[in-house]
């Protein structure tokens, strides 16, 4: 047996200490593979969305054979628990111990704002899709990018199209989720509504995760609106729509879901509830682009149903990140950030361009009208896309004055 010298022991000790601190793992990761973190909600208020987000990101990575710029991609996920505290802690851990340099997610706007701060501090690339305008607005910085349409683009598409179809429906009652996303979209719905002479007869805010909507609906009914408009998401939106139907408001009155996940929400509602339902979304699976057609086909083959906004966003954000790496011919964060700024591609929802000054992805937003039960060609044939809009946020509203430096 070979004896160890004092020098050998010191070397081994050094390596062991280094491993304990996680350095070699990180260095190895930097050299050989690109570590991408999918930060999704597997528990908490958005736990139903986590698994489908994961599917979307995996599909985009699988398309590339888990490789980019000659390096293999290591995909890791963490559960953000739909909580800012857990999300930031786990994101930091993934950056420090697993060498993650690219964060996609999380799903909740409020949680994402906290993660965006981590990305800034740790200098890692971050792509997010959601309803808060702050990531590409008041709290913008060089490391975070926004995939979803600006809340202004969404509000403009929804309000303009709806008023064209229903010019007399001018009394609007709003039901708004009381967090970052709800506030942003509400602000612009009101702003755009002014131009159409809409009277907002009521605007109630409900907490995230609300399951008892009867009181809100009683108030809405009391205001005698021409239309009820919901600015909420996921189970909140589904529960709200169901209650509005139970009270007999719909289908007599139109109900607008301003910022919906599309398929994931619509499938939870009976066709009777969907009658006279108008839906705005960042994605709908009948979107007519080559990338969307291919994505929908492979998603349906693998998972047996059409994708909604969530898997589409995860897929789209991952594709944009990989496209930025290709453009940069590098997987170093600083290079990829610079390449992503101004990146222009024909991708999932059509022409997409990342505005370098704000990091907002400029892209179309969809507005659908749900079909009546007898007009549906299949159980998943929920709606027709009646408009797409891509009016960007006017400069006077832009809150991102200086995106800062790397």
């Amino acid at each position, binding site marked *: 047996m070979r004896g160890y010298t004092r020098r050998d022991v010191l070397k081994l000790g050094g390596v062991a200490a280094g491993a304990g601190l996680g350095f070699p793992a990180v260095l190895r990761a930097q050299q050989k593979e690109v570590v991408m973190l999918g930060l999704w909600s597997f528990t908490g208020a958005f*736990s*139903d969305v986590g*698994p489908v987000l994961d599917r979307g990101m995996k599909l985009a990575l699988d398309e590339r054979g888990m490789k980019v710029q000659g390096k293999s991609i290591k995909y890791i996920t963490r559960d953000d628990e739909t909580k800012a505290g857990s999300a930031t802690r786990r994101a930091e851990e993934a950056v420090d111990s697993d060498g993650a340099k690219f964060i996609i997610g999380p799903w909740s706007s409020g949680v994402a704002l906290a993660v965006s701060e981590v990305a800034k501090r740790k200098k890692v690339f971050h792509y997010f899709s959601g309803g808060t305008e702050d990531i590409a607005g008041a709290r913008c910085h060089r490391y975070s990018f926004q995939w979803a349409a600006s809340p202004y683009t969404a509000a403009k598409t929804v309000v303009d199209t709806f008023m064209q179809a229903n010019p007399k429906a001018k009394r609007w009652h709003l039901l708004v989720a*009381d967090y970052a996303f709800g506030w942003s979209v509400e602000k612009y719905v009101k702003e755009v509504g002014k131009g159409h002479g809409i009277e907002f007869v009521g605007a*109630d*805010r*409900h*907490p995230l*995760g*609300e*399951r*008892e909507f*009867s*009181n*809100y609906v*009683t*108030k809405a*009914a*009391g205001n005698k609106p021409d239309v009820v408009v919901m600015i909420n998401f996921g*189970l909140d939106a*589904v*529960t709200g729509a*169901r*209650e509005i139907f*139970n*009270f*007999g408001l719909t289908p007599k009155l139109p109900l607008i879901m301003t910022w919906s996940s599309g398929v*994931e929400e619509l*499938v*939870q*509602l*009976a066709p*009777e*509830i969907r009658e006279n339902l108008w839906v705005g979304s960042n994605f709908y699976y009948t979107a007519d682009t080559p990338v969307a057609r291919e994505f929908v086909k492979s998603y349906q083959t693998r998972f047996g149903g059409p994708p909604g906004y969530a898997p589409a966003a995860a897929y789209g954000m991952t594709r944009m990140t990989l496209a930025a790496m290709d453009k940069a011919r590098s997987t170093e964060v600083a290079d990829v950030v610079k390449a992503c700024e101004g990146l222009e591609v024909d991708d999932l929802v059509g022409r997409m361009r990342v505005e370098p000054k704000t990091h907002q992805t400029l892209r179309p937003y969809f507005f659908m009208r749900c079909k009546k039960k007898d007009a549906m060609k299949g159980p998943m044939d929920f709606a027709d896309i009646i408009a797409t809009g891509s009016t960007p946020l006017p400069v006077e509203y832009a809150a991102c004055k200086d995106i800062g430096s790397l």
Partner: protein
Amino acid sequence: MLYALMGIGLSIITGVLNIPNFAHGALFALGAYFLFTLIQLLGNFWLALLLAPLGVGLIGVLIEYGGIRPLYRAGHDYQLLLTFGLSLIVTEGIIVVWSPVGMSQLPPPLLRGGVDLGITFYPKYRLFVMVAAALLVLGAWLFLERTRYGAIMRAGIEDKEMVSLLGIDIHRLFTAAFALGAYLAGIAGALTAPIRGLSPGMGVDMLGIAFVVVALGGLGNLLGAIAAGLLIGVAQAVVAAYWTEASTVVIYAVMAAVLLVRPQGLFGIR
């Protein structure tokens, strides 16, 4: 009223078996899902509403007989862990059997839409649920107060050893109590399905409220559970009418306020 229904069921189990039943929310969800499937199979809402909670009651019997009973000797911690584990298993089971995506169950055609009550507009189905839940609460209360077995069950809550010494099969009492509690959770779930829809996590939302009701009413106190259920329901409705954002917080605010003044709960003696 639904809160009261959940509260009584949980209170019976907590009182008689002396364990906080963490699976109560899962049983609530099962009631809703059984209703959904039975409607698909039988095409009749009313028959499904009758059978679904009985199915949950049967599951309750199996849980007590097969799971909790062997653990009586092991102590409370293990029973508590068991009910907690069961809640996770049932929730995951629902995902496996019925899919993770939520579903809607419409009320029967007779009860769709709303009625104008003069002061407010209210859905017919909710009025039906109010009446049905009130009758069930009354029925449960009469059973516990006016029947012999109900008296035994109350005695079991007060003093298990004495009941056992008097020659009553305490194990059968435990099974009956768990089955009754499960039945009440099941029927609350089935009644709720057309209002709130179905989702695997629906029990979790309700479990928290059920525990608040039990704590507020006084642990194991049935009248307390009814009063607390009503109090929370009314408080929530009143607050929501004037300050909608606070309608969830008020549940816990009421609990905190009552427990500060009466730590043993409204009607509690322990």
